[in-house]
């Protein structure tokens, strides 16, 4: 099966090849393993971009293939980040506390270490005890499990409620948007255990990896992101191929007809929705250690809308489209908003791209929706003159 996917979907070997080339190129240009032409911070940006591509891939699964426009997928992304962030923060803070307490004449008890760690983490929101949701934050393995389980469970419950009562189309979009808004408002509260609007910070300091240094860590995280994206791509391609994929696409095109053919539409939608949420969780868990900080602002509704827009610009309904859209728009955004783009002098007015980029981006959305409904990936069709999907 794993082999046949490479044969059936030509985009898979091409994509894996391109991804491997990019990974090699970044490695040989990185400061740690190559010439140093790519700085540490830019390596991180590239790694983060790959994570966003993975999230866009997940988004394309639900929207492009199953027709569910979720405007809350960044909630799953953020939850993945929070789950891994709890472990990073706990382990890191505990190491620092142990180092401090090691100098006291009497060795500290486990209770004292735990208490001091909690105080260090939560004093910013005026608390000093571990909230219940940090119960497994001292275990990397359990935290990694939660990265998949928590977004998956949220998607399962939410999807079950929504699909069961046949909420579809724009109603579902609005509900998913409400979900991510509710989650971000919930996390904004200081007393909910995830440090309110302070969020989790210092995530770039990987516990026990101080000796390795950010130069090498950034490349390692880039590899990990590339690996996750590659695996995600193969997995997604496998999922949408074959009978399962045909049914899912059938649901997208005519849900009623598929239902009348006797397929349990809700189950298929639920599987796709949940799997895609778990992929998002993994993407988030890889993204935030590179970003260094996560706070509730990250999962505000607008982030999820951007995710949908990337997929739309890239071209939904084909996996590489989502990746192209996410990579192109987020890298262009970085380029324009970092001040590297040259200002345009019109004589009477100088266009400063930091200010004007959002306007350009917004109008770009409009133009793509109006004139290129199949997105950038649709341009390939003109070149190849052949339907890919």
């Amino acid at each position: 099966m794993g082999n046949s996917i490479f044969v059936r979907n030509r985009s898979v070997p091409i994509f894996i090849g391109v991804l491997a080339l990019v990974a090699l190129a970044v490695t040989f240009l990185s400061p740690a393993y190559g010439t140093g032409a790519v700085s540490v911070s830019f390596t991180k940006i590239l790694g983060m971009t790959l994570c966003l591509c993975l999230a866009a891939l997940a988004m394309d699964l639900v929207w492009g293939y199953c027709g569910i426009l979720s405007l809350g997928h960044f909630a799953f992304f953020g939850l993945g980040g929070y789950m891994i962030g709890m472990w990073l923060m706990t382990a890191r803070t505990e190491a620092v506390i142990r180092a401090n307490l090691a100098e006291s004449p009497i060795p500290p008890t486990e209770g004292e270490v735990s208490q001091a760690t909690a105080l260090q983490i939560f004093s910013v929101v005026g608390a000093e005890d571990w909230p219940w949701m940090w119960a497994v934050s001292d275990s990397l393995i359990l935290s990694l499990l939660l990265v998949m389980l928590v977004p998956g469970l949220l998607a399962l419950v939410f999807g079950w409620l929504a699909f069961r009562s046949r909420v579809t189309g724009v109603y579902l979009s609005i509900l998913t948007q409400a979900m991510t808004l509710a989650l971000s408002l919930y996390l904004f509260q200081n007393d909910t255990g995830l440090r309110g609007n302070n969020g989790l910070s210092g995530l770039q300091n990987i516990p026990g990896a101080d000796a390795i240094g950010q130069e090498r860590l950034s490349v390692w995280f880039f590899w990990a992101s590339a690996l996750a994206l590659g695996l995600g791509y193969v997995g997604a391609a496998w999922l949408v191929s074959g009978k399962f994929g045909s049914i899912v696409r059938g649901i997208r095109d005519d849900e009623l007809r598929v239902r009348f053919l006797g397929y349990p539409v809700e189950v298929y939608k639920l599987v796709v929705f949940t799997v895609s949420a778990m992929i998002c969780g993994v993407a988030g868990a890889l993204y935030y250690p590179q970003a260094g900080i996560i706070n509730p602002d990250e999962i505000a509704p607008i982030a999820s809308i951007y995710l949908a827009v990337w997929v739309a610009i890239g071209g939904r309904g084909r996996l590489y489209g989502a990746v192209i859209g996410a990579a192109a728009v987020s890298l262009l955004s970085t380029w324009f908003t970092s001040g590297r783009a040259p200002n345009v002098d019109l004589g009477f007015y100088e266009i400063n791209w930091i200010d004007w980029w959002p306007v350009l981006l917004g109008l770009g959305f409009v133009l793509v929706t109006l004139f290129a409904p199949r997105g950038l990936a649709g341009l390939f069709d003109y070149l190849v003159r052949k339907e890919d999907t």
Partner: protein
Amino acid sequence: MIRIALAALAGVFLSLTAPLPTHAQQTDGPDLQSILQDNSELVANASRRTVQEVLDILVDSRLPEVPAFLTAWQARALYQRESDGLFVYVEDPDADALTLIDITSGEGLGTATSREVRQLRPNRGVQSVIGATLVGFQLASDDPAVRLGALDAIEDDPEERHLAALEDLVATETDPDVLERAELLLPALVIAFSDDDAPRVEAIRSLAGNISLTARRTLNPLLTTRTEFAETLPENANIARELSPGSDLLSVADAYDMLVADGLAPALIPRSDQVATLAANIVDGEVGGVPVATLNTESARDRAYAALVEAGIAPPAPTEADIAQSLGRFVFFEVYNERSAAVTSTARETLDGIETRVGFYRFLDLSLDGISLASIYFLAAIGLAITFGVMGVINMAHGEFIMIGAYTGYLVQTLVPNETASLAIAIPLAFIVTFMAGVAMERLVIRWLYHRPLETLLATFGISIALQQIVRLIFGALTQPLTPPDWMAGSVALNDVVSISSIRVAIFILAVLFFFALWLILNRTRLGLEVRAVTQNPAMAASMGINPDRINMLTFGLGSGIAGIAGVAIGLFAQVVPDMGSNYIVQSFMTVVVGGVGNIFGTLVGASIIGAFQKFVEWLNPTNTLAAQTYMIIFVILFIQFRPRGIIALRGRAAGD
């Protein structure tokens, strides 16, 4: 400034002194200045303890100018001439050459430099004693406003000698406002200063059912308690209740601390002190025979400490059993600060009755808040009810139309400074501006996407971020002021519990007006008929001679224009910032979805439910509005499970799909 204040004081005392001249002319005693000269030392260097003496003399003199004099003295506007000790007023204290004024006649006494006179600066204590005396004069004033002011002063700083004056006032007062205040204040003074229980109980009873803050402020102090302990419950104390250590009201640690504070039990040795003792007694890598490296558990530390205690190096720490035994010897109880049990029990009873009523009014107040919140949601969502609800277009830029409306209001206000006039201009102008914007957007973008609703969402989202950024580039990211007219600034208060700000009343009225206007437009006009026809079946409508393009354009313009007006209203109480629209967009969609798509009545119901639910959650947890919003959204998500088409669902063909 001071001059104005003095002028105002003088104004007040014209009315104060007016009733008194009859007494004055009959008085043949010494004039004010000579009384003051007799007590010169007491006046010039007044202290809280001695000033009463001279005040009594002044009151007894019944001179008409005494109140004005006391006011000036209290306000530090009284001066004494260094050369002869004469007490004078000064015309303008900031001038270089001070013009002196006689305290009785008001005639000029020539000028002096600031070195030749000394300003009398009574301290706060003296000022309050003078104030208390003044209150007596003020209560006798003819002007009800002055009498009310005196009652305020009594309430701020009640004194025993006010009691009699107040009783006189209640007996003779004719002005209803003053009487009401006085009758409320009298029980407070009786309760505070009467020696006998019977009148105090009577006074407490008279407050029954009175929900004013004053009444509650009077009763609450009677019920304050302090925690005490004794070997047996004292018989003669007014005990509120017994407490057992370890309950919610009294922790074991607090109870034990009380015993320690009185030296009745050995002090606890905190864990940190024990560890410090251990650290101070490390011998050869061991403490009391326990290796230091193993001291990382509590039990090992306990063993090491016990060894130190045995060796006589450390004081023994009380064990749990010791603590329990010490606590067992005493009873702990709360005792009222008020001695009389009759007074406290009556006060408790009365206060409970008041609290019940207050609870009812709180509920009423909360309901008003809920209605007001519902009006805001309704205003924000009503435009969407047309574009999304009736036309099925998901306009993510709806929030930006609200924002444009608010900025239109702000712009008009910068041009027309009169707030009422600018509001009158801004409301139609905002409608026109956003109507045009909506029509332009419909013509350029939305009409190409009618068959692709999800993509409308993305295109309008693009427009939304572009509009936000353009406004940010023009006006900056900071909050712009949109000031409501003065007549909207106050609040309407039913009593001390129930009040609502006028601006919220105005928004409620606006919401009601909107509702009826739209209902009329959609159900009673040609345009409304055509809109409904096009919504239900554009092809059939077209074959009936309706131009669907034109109708779609006008409908979208109407929805957008209404969002603009809502923006002016919202801008009056919320912050006018470029991204203000995004605060309302998700709520607005939820309002429309909950209410049921396709009719504005549904939006009204949806807004009411959401507003009421949110206020209800806030009532359960008043400190946390974020939690209220969170639960409100979860409520909406669950609600949609049971009524996926909203509360007012269209049935049959009109529902379409």
